[in-house]
Structures are given as structure tokens and as C-alpha cells.
């Protein structure tokens, strides 16, 4: 039973300050770190150097899935499996297929986006190594919380804490967990 370091936690109360700190941490070369905020802060992702998510490609895949389903279903049912003459229209016409193509592309896009988002955000996550820390809990209230994980290559219990303090973080401390 030893206390293994999980990471360093620091608190910020000003969104501009946390954005500046994010740039500094990014430029210092850290990779395994995150910022937890009570509400979305514009420009923070850029300051942190977060890469563009691949979610849009998943969404586009959903669009293709939806529209091919819509066209396939309508063509197969209307023109092949059970042709019915309705109002003298063709068994399959592009005109009447448009609303269904439109709706199913939206549905496909929406479903793929939600599932893709859950996957990329690793949801649902039932446990987080920081979750019992009192500073971390403030991230849901009024504080911007920076966490730098101990498995980062540049992590060092002392210098990382010093850096965060220099950047203006309050209540900087090491979080540990019991390892067995």
C-alpha cells in the first residue's frame, strides 16, 4: 500500500487568466493535462492546443448512412417489392423522396454525432481519479481547475507545481491515490 501521485491540481477564478495559463502549459510541452470549467470558455481549446476533433467525419458518415438508407428503402419498397400506383406518380420519383432523404440524413447525422460524441468524450465514465479532490469539485461551481497528470513525460511534482503557482493558480497541490 503506497500513495502514488495522480497529478497536480490548480485553481483559477478568472477565465482570461486560465486561458493565458493554458497557453503557457501548452508551450511548456505538456500533453496529459486538462482544464475543467463550469461553463464553456471561448478560445480555450485553441489556447490549450486541442486538435480538431474527428467528430465531423463521424457526423458526415451518419449523413451518408441516413441518405443511403432513405433512398434504398424507398426504391426497394416502392419500385421493387410492392409497387403501388399512388396518384399517378412514379413508383420511385426523386421529387417525393426528398423529404424522406432530408429527414433520414438529419436523423443519421444526429444519431452518429451523439454516439460519436459519447465515444470521443469517453462517456459514460463512472470514475475519475481526481473526483474526490475538493478543488476538483469546485469545477462544477465557480472555479476553473487545471489538472496535469502524473503520467505526462514532463511531470515533476515540484517544478510542475511551481509553474502553476507562477501562472497564478491558487491552492496548487498534489493529488495522490492509494495504489496496491
Amino acid at each position: 500500500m503506497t500513495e502514488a501521485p495522480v497529478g497536480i491540481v490548480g485553481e483559477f477564478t478568472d477565465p482570461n487568466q486560465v486561458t493565458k495559463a493554458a497557453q503557457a502549459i501548452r508551450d511548456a510541452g505538456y500533453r496529459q493535462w486538462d482544464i475543467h470549467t463550469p461553463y464553456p470558455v471561448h478560445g480555450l481549446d485553441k489556447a490549450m492546443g486541442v486538435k480538431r476533433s474527428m467528430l465531423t467525419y463521424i457526423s458526415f458518415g451518419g449523413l451518408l448512412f441516413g441518405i443511403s438508407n432513405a433512398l434504398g428503402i424507398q426504391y426497394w419498397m416502392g419500385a421493387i417489392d410492392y409497387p403501388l400506383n399512388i396518384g399517378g406518380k412514379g413508383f420511385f420519383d426523386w421529387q417525393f423522396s426528398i423529404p424522406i432523404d432530408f429527414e433520414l440524413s438529419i436523423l443519421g447525422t444526429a444519431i452518429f454525432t451523439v454516439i460519436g460524441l459519447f465515444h470521443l468524450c469517453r462517456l459514460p465514465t463512472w470514475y475519475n481519479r481526481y473526483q474526490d479532490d475538493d478543488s476538483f469539485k469546485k469545477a462544477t461551481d465557480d472555479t476553473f481547475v487545471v489538472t496535469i497528470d502524473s503520467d505526462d513525460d514532463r511531470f515533476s511534482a515540484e517544478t510542475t507545481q511551481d509553474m502553476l503557482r507562477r501562472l497564478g493558480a491558487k491552492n496548487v497541490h498534489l493529488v495522490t491515490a492509494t495504489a496496491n
Partner: protein
Amino acid sequence: MTQTNLGSTPVVAAMRKWGVIFLAAGAVGLAATFAISGQQRFMADYLLGFWYFAGISVTMVFFSALQYLTRAGWSSAIRRIAENFSGFVPVIGIALIPIVADVLTGHGIYEWTHESAKTDPLLIKKEVYLNNTFFFVRLGLYALLWFAFVRYIVGNSVKQDTASDFRPSQKNWKRSAPWILLYAMTITFASFDLLMSLEPHWFSTIWGVYAFAGHFVAAIAIVTLATTSFYRAGYLREYITEEHFHDLGKLMFAFSVFWTYIAFSQYFIIWFANLPEETIYFTHRTQGGWEYFGAALVLLHFVIPFITLLRQDVKRKLTILRFAAVVILLSHFVDLAWIIMPAVGKVMAHGNPDHHSSFVFGWQEFTGVMFFGGVFLFLASRLFTSRNAVAVNDPLLHEAVEYTS
């Protein structure tokens, strides 16, 4: 502080120069059209050019009013560029005179003004609305209300530049909602009167929205072209950022899709119901050469803008953004030509024994847009000379400089 009045810059000088060239060339072209192809063809091209730029100019004022209504911060840096393109609005009243004269001749482009309309059972019923006197009153009302609209909204916006308090902006914040309601009514009824009544037996209740959607996306395209031109030439760099281009790209994307949605809704319901009095509009426009216009519209007004503007990062690439804007402006022309020319072709064919309308499209159709494009550009260049290109004293300008989209 950087330069905020761009009157002496090469961009505005080019606007002035090309405005005068287009104005002169278009005037000569319109005169040639009148001499060679007759009054109806001339009037159709005149209407095509007039409605293209009148609609866009009024919509520029609407764009400004919309920013005031929503208290939008992001747009304060580019709002004045849109407002400066409204220079054509005050002279709309003068530009309407040839349309009135055309109606008065009794053999103009509007079939319901002809002698034959007096024996047409359907047009007799519509005479309550479609008669010369009421038509002229309505046209005058549009010109007057639009003049008041631009004077109030843009006037207050310009007053804010030199005001010591925020009262002009507060006035606009308070009053923009009723003005937008008025814009919605006037653009709807003006599009009924000027375009839909070209096919007096036909009607479409979504027509006003259709007209608005086309004008709005074209107006955004012009704002995009102007903003990127200024930015590329090195002006307004303290006020305009990549974020503005991103948002303009989003608006162009959204409203070209919106136009498609409305255009398809109109087509779809008529196609499905298949009632003769409704389908005449589309049967006439999907044969005899006009079907290529319809196909070009799908491509230019929807497919190309959609594909080029779909990705997030291309909305920040000025070359692609400008390409999409040019395509949208072209598609708006194709749209209006597709609405106006088949209807006028029918009227022109009335004298023919075979009664079959021919495909009416040639060099003449470009003269009207050229003329009014020249007027539009020239009057805009005058406003860029007399006014700032940025609402320098706008209470929300700091938001526009800092924001991320």
C-alpha cells in the same frame, strides 16, 4: 487608429470606376435592347436588374436592423459595410418610374394590364388587387417605406459615429423590431406585385419567403466580397478578423440551404397536388430550354455552395469564400431570370399565331443587371467616401474585435 474612411483606397476607387463603366455600358445595352428587341423585352431586363439590386439593397438595411434587434456584437465591425451598400434604396422611387410607364402603355410585361385581361374570368376576379391605380399606390408605398427604413436604421447607425452618448444605437435597438416587420411585409408584397403578377393566373403563398431567401444570401455574398477585398488590401485589419469571415461563410451556407428548402417546398407541393392552375408555372419552366436554368439553379444555388462551404476550415480561407460568394451571386441572377423571362416570353408570344412562346434569353438579359449593378456600385462607393467603413463608436464594437465564433 487605423484608417476607417476608405474613400481614398484603391478598393473604393475600383468600385467607383467599375460602377461608372457598368452604368454606362448597361445604359447603352438597355437602349439597344429597347431598339432591337422591343419594349417588353427591354422592360423584362430592366425589371431583372432592378429587382436584383433593389432587393439586395433593402436587404442590406434589413441585415443592419437584424443586428440591432438581436443586439449582435460580432457584426458591429462589418455592419457598416452592409449599410454602405444600401445607397441604391433612396433612388428606388425613381427607378420604379419606367415600370409605371410600361404598365400605362397597355402592352407592357404585365398581362393583367392588357386589354385582354378585361375578359379573362380569373383576372376579373383578381382586379380588386391587380389594377393599375392600386398597383401604383403600392409601388409608391414601397419606395417611401424603404426610404424611411434606410433613413431611420442606417441614419441612426451613422449618427452614432459622432454622438457623445449611445442614444442613436438605443433608438435602433428599440425600433428595429417594427421596422423588420415592415420589411417583411414590403418585400413580400413587392415580390408579389413585381414578379408573381407576371404570371397573373398563378399564385404561390411562399413567394415572399422565396424572394427574401434569395436576396438575403446574395446580400451576404456581397458583404463577404467587399469585406474580403478590404481585408486583403490591408484595410480594417484592427476590426475584422478571421472570425468574421467564418461567420459570413456560415450565413452564406445556411441561407443557400434555406433558399433551397423554400424553393423545393414550393415546387414539391405543386408537383404533388398536380393541379393545372398551379402547375402552369413549372411546366412552362421545365421545357423549351428553361429546364437547363432549373438544373443550373440546383447546382449553383445549392450543390456548389453546400459542398464548398460545408467544412469548417474553408470558411476561413478567403479564396474559397469569395468563390462561393460569386457562385451565389450568379445563381441569384439565374433564379430571377428563370422567374421573369419565361413569363415575359409568354406575353411576347401573345401576338404570334401559333401562340407558342419561344426561349427568350440572350445578351439583352445582361444589360439590365449591368446597368443596375453599376448604379449599385457607384452609389455604394459614394457612401464609402462620405462615411466610415466601420461603426467606430458602436457600443458593441469591442465585442466584435474580440469574439471567437
